[in-house]
């Protein structure tokens, strides 16, 4: 177990290094650089600035300097935001994205398992048909549409109630989180519902469920201990990538709901060629994805005894 985790972590570090390298060179190949601005700058000033930020050095040298700093946990200072360290930006804003993401994935996983199990139990009957129709909507309609609809819904709800139950945007309290988290998790919830439904139906015909019935077990015990637990396995498998997709893909929802999450800085940095922030956020997201996949694999080992962590 310990060896397995160690090996996965080493693999993870290599993956993150690869991401950093690819991003570094891709970024430097994009036309423009962080020193470009609306104001005309004389060649002299520009040369000074480049020297100050080390951009005059050969690319490979910059790369190794960057790697050395990154290895020490130093992502540098933002080019465009005065005196802000990339570490501070990540620390401050990722917390918000993570809180939103965790809530969203909790909605998605619980909802997906619940609705999936429900549709399987009511197969081809009204609840199944209605939920599966909504699932198709949830999968095919893009997130920003739901974000807009969510806000509209909140406005109408608050107007009907006469007080502000859920704020339309911003960040701070739990009531700020609920609606954006629901919106953010909706697509994943729809996807997990479908996965859970097909998994449940597949298991329903399994021989070991017939055995469970032959043992004369009560229906709810068969459902809980034999059907549900086995049906959940595929859902756990896709949970890792889902967590990453939700936490990194939340920036549209963050934008619509005016949430100061990391996603906004990520996109801004790319637009402004803010090298240090691009590198910092990309490497951080990469490392986060790798870490979540490892965590899910370890959890999987507990859920499914056939997966041996050795």
């Amino acid at each position, binding site marked *: 177990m310990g060896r397995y985790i160690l090996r996965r972590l080493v693999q993870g570090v290599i993956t993150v290094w690869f991401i950093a390298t690819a991003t570094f060179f891709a970024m430097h190949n994009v036309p423009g650089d962080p020193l470009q601005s609306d104001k005309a700058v004389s060649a002299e000033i520009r040369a000074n600035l480049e020297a100050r930020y080390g951009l005059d050095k050969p690319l490979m040298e910059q790369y190794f300097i960057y790697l050395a700093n990154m290895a020490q946990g130093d992502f540098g200072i933002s080019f465009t935001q005065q005196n802000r360290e990339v570490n501070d930006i990540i620390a401050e804003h990722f917390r918000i994205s993570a809180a939103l993401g965790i809530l969203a994935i909790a909605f998605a996983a619980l909802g997906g398992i619940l609705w999936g199990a429900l549709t399987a139990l009511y197969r081809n009957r009204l609840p199944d048909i209605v939920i599966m129709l909504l699932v198709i909507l949830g999968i095919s309609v893009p997130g920003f549409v739901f974000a807009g609809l969510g806000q509209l819904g909140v406005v109408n709800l608050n107007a009907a109630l006469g007080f502000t139950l859920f704020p339309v945007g911003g960040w701070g309290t739990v009531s700020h989180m609920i609606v954006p988290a629901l919106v953010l998790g909706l697509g994943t919830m729809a996807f997990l519902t479908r996965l859970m439904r097909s998994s449940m139906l597949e298991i329903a015909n*399994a*021989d*070991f469920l*017939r*055995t*469970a*019935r*032959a*043992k*004369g*077990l*009560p229906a709810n*015990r068969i459902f809980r*201990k*034999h059907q549900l*637990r*086995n049906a959940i*396995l595929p859902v756990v498998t896709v949970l890792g990538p889902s967590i990453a997709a939700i936490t990194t893909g939340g920036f549209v929802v963050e934008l619509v709901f005016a949430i100061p999450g990391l996603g906004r800085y990520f996109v801004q940095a790319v637009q402004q060629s803010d090298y240090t922030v691009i590198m910092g956020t990309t490497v951080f997201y990469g490392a986060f994805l790798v870490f979540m996949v490892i965590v899910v694999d370890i959890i999987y080992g507990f*859920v*499914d*005894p*056939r997966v041996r962590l050795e």
Partner: protein
Amino acid sequence: MALLEVSDLHVEFDTYGGTVHAVRGVDFRLDEGQTLAIVGESGCGKSVTVQSFTGLIPMPPGRIVRGGATLRGHDILGGGRIDGKEVRGREIGMIFQDPMTSLNPTMTIGDQIAEPLQVHAGMKRRTAHARAVELLEMTRIPEPAKRAEQYPFEFSGGMLQRAMIAMALSCEPSVLIADEPTTALDVTIQAQILDLMVDLQRENGMAIALITHDLGVVARMADEVLVMYAGQVVERGSVDDVFYRSAHPYTLGLKAAMPTNQSEGEQDLQPIDGSPPDLFAPPEGCGYAARCPFAMEACQGPPPVYGIRAAAADAYDHESRCWLHHEDCDIAAEGVHKGE
């Protein structure tokens, strides 16, 4: 009174292609400590017979059209209850064809054996678990305490079938239904599993209903034999009657198709030509007529059941569902026993 009695069982399945008449009037009785073998080729309704009256076929699409099943006189059709207590797992234990898929892959063997004890006998988890280890030992699994902690994927096929038997017998049922218990196992393991069943039966006196298409298994295990074809019982009788005084052409066909290790005669295996009739629209007459070497005009009408020999004190009725036994029939059907 018979321990288990099934009467006039009719089971149908609704499919997109129409209604399948899978079981068309099956009767049998099973007494304590006896072994009844139900034989016949694939698709003749053996499994559906036992799985329907125990409530294991999915309904719908399955449907018990009519019939009855009683255990010690109590109605249990569809896996019912006696005095509010579940029959399955407690009174009737069951094992199935493929042990590799018949156990829950995410639960330890011990927990799965302990489950009926917790549910039916109200045992605490620890007691049930200790009993599960004893049961594994009873089915001759080495290192039972260690094995109980393992998961099905850590067991071989034969070991899994032993674990299935331990599970089926955990609540000391009066009937064990074994639905092709050795079909998925290799031959040496088959013999071990059958021996185990015989030994356990001798110890606790349970009755066994054994479904198989292996006549060798029948000869070894059965007291009484039920030969099924196209959803009906075509011949029944003691194992000796059915084997040595076969009264139905289908039984003869099955015997001719059985490999033997006797070199005398050097007979080739004689497969039965053709395949069983379409049970979407079962023939009005004898289901076997299309493949029967002795078929005659009368076979277009449903053959009655003829008593070949009534039960003596220590034997079973010998019956055959075939026109050849009609008193006016003078066809000399070679090999068909027509009674004394």
